[in-house]
């Protein structure tokens, strides 16, 4: 078989050396009850590359790729143009087939890249220190809450209603077992988030308040107001960002006083991939919090000859040293996605990132105006970056999204899908526009929506 180098001669030579009569002799410790008499049944036998490729292509062809339709989905996963060189870089065997850099002398490539990554994330977020990645934005969000409880030694987390509902769910899932008290709410359908309602929920038991920016409806808000309110009560402000490109246009959470900034890094380098692997980003504004951070950290040092080099450091926070007292149980993280992010970010640089953000925002403004002009559609947001909420007349937005798909248009994310059963949100459609969106796409979405909204109710 093409991946198995041992030949039958090798196998018998090796058995002889071992002193075993047959391969079964090496599995004697498996209890009788679990021994099988041959390959596991009900599964196919091995197949050629060609056959496997045909099978997989058949499955791939059953999906409507974003590139094959006018496409307006976001809500935590964004479609941006990834330069071709990013994929070249992450396919270098030395990056792709390496493990976590446990032997730093022969892992400087991964380590230096991580040091660059940490620096980029810290700068993007307006923070002092970032880690070497977590699984995705949602698990990073939970880790932030957990860290806040460690730092403040309090148990309550106040979650903004306009935090991505999947993120809130992840936090709640974890908390139901760990004893944290999680206060959640649903987003209010208002042109601007109501920060007073949020800050009024902070009390002396609050470990942290968690706000998304831009929020799940695409709105922007003044985080410093929340930061002040939190800090006044001795709580931390955790800011969640799902669209890093936005931070090329809008103030960083760090600048506005966030203590922990977490988010999804998928927009840069990683691609949509049906939801994973993605890239959890995690940063803290104050370096004193470093020793409470979850996940791996890469640090600078020198070698025996005095040359600069990099190593994984502060591992006494981690599971493999601290075991049940670790700051997190994470081990494998999103290393290769971090490389993709950092390569893409390096290609952009500040100049490119700002241009990219500006282009996203410009096209989003064009789209918002065009769509708001369709009878039966109202634009909710006062401010937005590349994502905004439309209120649609008639049918629930979820049905309209399906109708659009039937017409070959991937028209956005209905809040009905994100908040099943919540009637107040049923008619809201979240529309995302990036540099990949063409004017023709916008026109198609507008005319198709117009047509659908005109259809008589059945």
């Amino acid at each position, binding site marked *: 078989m093409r*991946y*198995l*180098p041992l030949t039958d001669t*090798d*196998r018998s030579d*090796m058995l002889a050396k*071992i002193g075993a009569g047959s391969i079964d002799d090496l599995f004697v410790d498996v209890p009788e009850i679990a*021994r*099988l008499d041959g390959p596991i049944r009900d*599964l196919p036998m*091995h*197949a050629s590359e060609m056959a496997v490729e045909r099978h997989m292509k058949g499955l*791939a*062809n059953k999906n409507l*790729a974003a590139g*094959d339709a006018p496409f307006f*989905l976001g809500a935590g*996963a964004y479609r941006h143009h990834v330069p071709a060189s990013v994929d070249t870089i992450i396919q270098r065997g*030395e990056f792709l087939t390496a*493990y976590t850099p446990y032997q730093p*002398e*022969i892992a400087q*490539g*991964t380590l230096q890249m991580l040091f*660059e990554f*940490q*620096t*980029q994330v810290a*700068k*993007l977020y307006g923070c002092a220190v970032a880690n070497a*990645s977590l699984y995705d934005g*949602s698990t990073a969000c939970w880790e932030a809450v957990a860290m806040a409880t460690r730092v403040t030694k309090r148990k309550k987390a106040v979650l903004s209603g306009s935090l991505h509902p999947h993120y809130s769910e*992840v936090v709640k899932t974890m908390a139901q*077992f*760990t004893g944290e008290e999680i206060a959640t709410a649903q987003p209010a359908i208002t042109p601007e988030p109501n920060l007073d309602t949020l800050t009024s929920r902070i009390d002396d038991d609050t470990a942290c308040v968690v706000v998304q920016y831009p929020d799940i409806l695409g709105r922007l808000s003044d985080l410093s107001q929340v930061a002040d309110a939190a800090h006044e009560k001795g709580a931390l402000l955790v800011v969640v960002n799902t669209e890093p490109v936005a931070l090329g*246009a809008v103030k960083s959470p760090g600048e506005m006083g966030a203590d922990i900034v977490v988010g999804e890094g998928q927009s840069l380098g990683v691609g949509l*991939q*049906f*939801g*994973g692997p993605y890239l959890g980003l995690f940063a803290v504004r104050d370096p004193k919090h470093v020793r409470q951070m979850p996940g791996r950290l890469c640090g*600078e*040092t020198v070698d025996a000859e005095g040359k600069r080099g*990099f190593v994984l*450091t502060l*591992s006494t926070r981690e*599971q493999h040293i601290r075991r049940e007292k670790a700051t997190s149980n994470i081990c494998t*993280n*999103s*290393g*290769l996605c971090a490389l993709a992010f950092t*390569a893409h970010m390096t*290609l952009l*640089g*500040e*100049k*490119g990132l700002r241009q*990219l953000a500006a282009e996203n925002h410009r096209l989003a403004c064009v789209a918002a105006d065009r769509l708001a002009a369709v009878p039966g559609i109202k634009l909710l947001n006062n*401010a937005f970056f590349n994502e905004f909420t439309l209120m649609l007349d008639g049918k629930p937005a979820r049905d309209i999204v399906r109708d659009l*798909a*039937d017409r070959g248009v991937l028209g956005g994310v209905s809040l009905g899908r994100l908040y099943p059963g919540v009637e107040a949100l049923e008619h809201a459609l979240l529309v995302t526009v990036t540099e990949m969106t063409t004017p023709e796409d916008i026109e198609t979405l507008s005319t198709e929506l117009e047509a659908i909204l005109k259809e008589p109710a059945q």
Partner: protein
Amino acid sequence: MNAPNKSGWKPAMEVADATGETPTTTGNRALMLEEPLIFEIGSTDQTGVDLPEVDPNAANRLGGFERTDPIGLVGLTEPETVRHYTRLSRQNYGIDLGFFPLGSCTMKHNPRLNEKMARLPGFADIHPLTPQSSVQGALEVIDQLATWLKTLTGMPAVAMSPKAGAHGELCGILAIRAAHTAAGNPREVVLVPESAHGTNPATAAFAGYKVDNIPATPEGRVDVEALKARLAKGGEGESDVAAVMITNPNTCGLFEKDFREIADAVHAIGGYVYCDGANFNAIVGRVRPGDLGVDAMHINLHKTFSTPHGGGGPGSGPVVFSEALAPFAPLPYVEKDASGEFTIVEEETTDADHQTFGRMTAFHGQMGMFTRALTYMLSHGADGLKQVAEDAVLNANYILRSLEDILHAPYADSGPCMHEALFGDKDFGGGLSTLDLAKGLIDEGFHPMTVYFPLVVHGAMLVEPTETESKASIDQFITAFRSVTERALAGDESLKQAPYFAPRRRLDETAAARKPKLVWSEPEG
């Protein structure tokens, strides 16, 4: 490299070059190239993309939140970027370069067909919230992979969303906790052997459990009698033990012969058996954990099923469940209806079969890893996977028996090893230890084995060859390993300085931790 900007980076060459040769002005040594940080060669005005210029006065709807301060992100053009990361990559070791016997990590070959399939636009370019009718192929991938996993493990259910092994452990323990809670009492303790991977106790603690030790026998396995005694502790009433977490094959490389008996004992006190499946590669296609009484087990697709480790991740850690735990599996999951249509269940329902403990991650799991793992499984088939386990075990035993005469092999008499061979540094001379041997192997062109894990063996060296290594390659490794071991036994001082030929000599980890420098900053002055 791309040469330095005004940050003033210079190649470090103060200390005389180890080789005694004329040092170069660049610090390079032919194809071993030095490379500064991007911050030392790039600039915030440079970019490797062509996008329209920004008009700072253009109207916007950012609500007054424009980012005006400098961010400090440097850019490079494409030629510089490609070169920068190519040069960095050359300072790395990977499976593609040579033997990478990192125990417990299953560093097997990463087939390139997997990479190609994962990049098909029909998989790579689909949004997780696409209307389900437009992603039936993606849901079918998840369903097919789930079927393979269930069939290979002999388990009735599987949760696909966990993002890696540790996340899978969490998934399993949360399901266990949910099941206990549904039965009225979450209980307090999870039992974990000392030899377990750090994620096991960390996970149990994360899920709110106290961690207690499972005693081991001198032969390196769970001490069944002692375990039974611990389960019974507290006497007549309900046991305080919610679950045991056992790795099988275990981290000493041995099969837990008494697993079934242990499982029965745990079930008898109403507890659950969590199996850490990181070492599934040793038995895939040959043994079904479901036949051994497992209630939950995560499977590292990035180990057994060949998805690349990528220098630290991403991974994927689906969890198979027994009937008892299946109802508590997390959201979302994929269901197939009678008409063959697939749907994603994202909402909690109220029926008894679905008492989900909730959501663990934003979307459906590591789709990019699913396509790779499914490609791998289809390529091998049931026959090939069985051969995988057999060759992996054969290779490991071959190494064990080829080194046990000169290296301390604490469990050499405990029967055949499974996928990995464990050694210790007991007899090394001159104050040398496992670390020195590891660094000596680096010079020989090998990635060292896992060192100092498991904790139960002094100077542990855990060697996992996997099945994708040829006999010839292993023979070369054995020769080199014996040679370095002989030096270590003889107390050869020069090993203390190894590696000599790597891009860096030994790095000062203590200094790194003492005054952590975790991000680049403009040099002072």
